[in-house]
């Protein structure tokens, strides 16, 4: 929250010209069936698991 307030303050300084300083991208991922909005709330093991995931190609049935 504090971080967001700082972002907001820094934005107000130059809102007329530029937007988005300090604003990250949201990355939604699924763990244990549930979605999680930002990965900074994940525990270390699950972060590592997400990092290691490889994509599955479709290939033949």
């Amino acid at each position, binding site marked *: 929250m504090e971080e967001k307030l700082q972002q907001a303050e820094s934005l107000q300084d130059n809102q007329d010209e530029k937007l988005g*300083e300090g604003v990250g991208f949201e*990355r939604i991922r699924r763990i244990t069936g549930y*979605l999680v909005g930002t990965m900074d*709330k*994940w525990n270390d*093991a699950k972060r590592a698991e997400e990092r290691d*995931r*490889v*994509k*599955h190609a479709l290939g033949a049935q």
Partner: protein
Amino acid sequence: MIRSIIKRDGRRVLYDQNKIASAVLRAMEAAREGDAEAAARVANAVEGEIEAMFPAQSPNIEAIQDCVEHQLMNFGYNATAKAYILYRANRTYARDANTTLMRTINEITQADAIASDLKRDNANIDGNTAMGSMLQIGSAGAKAYNEMYLLRPEHAKAFREGDIYIHDFDFYHMTTTCTQIDILSLFHGGFSTGHGYLREPQSIQSYAALAAIAIQSNQNDQHGGQSIPNFDYAMAEGVAKTYHKAFYRALTDVIEDQLDLDDASDAVKEALTGAERTAGELAKLENKPGFDGALALALHNAFGLETDKAQSLLRRTRSRAWKRTDHETFQAMEGFVHNLNTMHSRAGAQTPFSSINYGTDITPEGRMAMRNVLLALDAGLGHGETCIFPIHIFKVKEGVNYNPGDPNYDLFRLSCKVSARRLFPNFTFLDSPYNLQYYVPGRPETEVATMGCRTRVIGNVYDPTRQISYSRGNLSFTSINLPRIALESHHDEAAFFKRLDEMLELTAQQLLDRYEIQAQKHVYNFPFLMGQGVWLDSDKLHVADEIREVLKHGTLSIGFIGLAETLTALYGHHHGESAEMQEKGLAIIRHMREYCDRKSQAMKMNFTLLATPAEGLSGKFIRQDQQRYGKIPGITDREYYTNSFHIPVWYPIQAFEKIRLEAPYHALCNAGHISYVELDGDTARNVEAFEQVVRWMHDCQIGYGSINHPVDRDPVCGYVGVIGDVCPRCGRREGHRVPESRIEELKKLYPDVVAFRGIE
């Protein structure tokens, strides 16, 4: 002569022989030997021994206790010595636990969640907030108490050392896990939340609002997630009520306009009611043939309208009523989704874990509700954010929605399209034989529904006439550390199965111990769950009754983690790598399932096998095993054990092959299962390819599955999709700025560009 002794905290206090005598006496009483006189003799001997050992200085408390043990054995009070040693060990453990508890609370209080894994244990709780910290401190205190006072020593040891993991341990003595809430029964006649009585809802908005309230009320009575098994069937009633009102209102409007009347409402009502009485049904989205004819006649009689004219007014009425109802349904569904994403009502720190199941209601009303809830999910939250809650679960069924020509095939297609963008719905497959065996057409309670996390409750050993998903749930679950059993068996298959059997027995006993605590609760402990009849048969209980019997409709589940690492430890590779290992893997899981089935029959209770979700667990077990065995390649060399029976996330395998290999485990894990495939963003957004994967899941007899793909969003320009380093829409890098003029340009091109103000 001893004058003073040194306590554990270093303080020096006056020596008092009576204290030794009374401690000895207490141990003698516990062991049923000796008396006060004997205790005094032992205390005397202890004093003599200490004086000899510490001629010049003050003895410390540990040394005195050593002498007590020694002298008790010296005198032949062996049982007393044993009691004294056990007491001493317990006190030491309790002191350590207290210190640990205080240290834990200190970490919760002082550390930022970024730095503390402890505070990120559950991703749904913000450990940085006041209520979040309160929740975590309460949880830490409850865990310490439960371990010290409620667990048998052998269960406490197995839990502490990482042989098993008792889920939701902080709630051990409080409640049960979850319920599939039959909101239709709940709504009929109205219900009480415990803080006020709510009348039966009369419009789709109220149905949706009360559905959210039902989830919110029930989640405060339980520790797990909450699910609605019949969202389509329930919302259909609300749609019907809204349509009926809209129809009457539209009809009144068109009549008044046509005839230039100020107020025709009473006459219209009379005509409508008459036609409805004749037809034997209310005006609804699709009435039986003849309904509109009868109504046209009634309008002719009431207003002198030509029948042709009346028919044309009715067509306009239907069109307006449909539009209004559809619009209100969308708003209701949007409100429901927004509600579930924003209410931090779970102990003030969590949004409830919520899930909704739908897909099989083929009435026009049910279909309207489903289409709109999917559209609301697709639209996202206020700025287009992907909804985290509820989990949507689409029930796939041949003859209902699976094949072209099925009445809800269009909704299945829409589900694929929305899931390809928003990660939900997930899909559950009613045609898989282990689900189909319960399915009775026309009785939606026999359709398998799932908790979003995967918990599945349908079979019922306790009451075989009630093999339904409604009004039931899991009581508790405990997971077994399978890789450890494999590691301790040193490639010896027979030793592995022997150890596995011991662990299954220990786990089942622990689940029964926990059930015994739960069973002694009363209806008044669960004002909503039991008091409002949400749980099966609780409506037959009185407020002061024990819930022992009705709880038996629930499940006691034994879970597991790390089949892949288990196979690697036993045989050198895992089930993704060879058909032989697949057979070995299935043999292990089948063995566990057979144990659960035998236990169920023996106890007449529902013991089920769970493919554990393992959010926090994946890291806990492996850290403990790394300390014991070090980092063994392919087994303990990562930061997590592989989820349940999954092929490891890091192992390269094609999507169809992964699904084919995991499917047979779904049939075995009757407490719940899920399979994922990971698609890249482009493939996932190809709806044909997406649907092909879902169809393959169905054909392989998967029970519950979903497709993962990256869903990123740039909050500045509102782009939703895959974002690498640079946002493909506005071109900014993460954390960097973009000129406002560029955003203004984009606003003209894309309707979902947000009016960004910095705080969301």
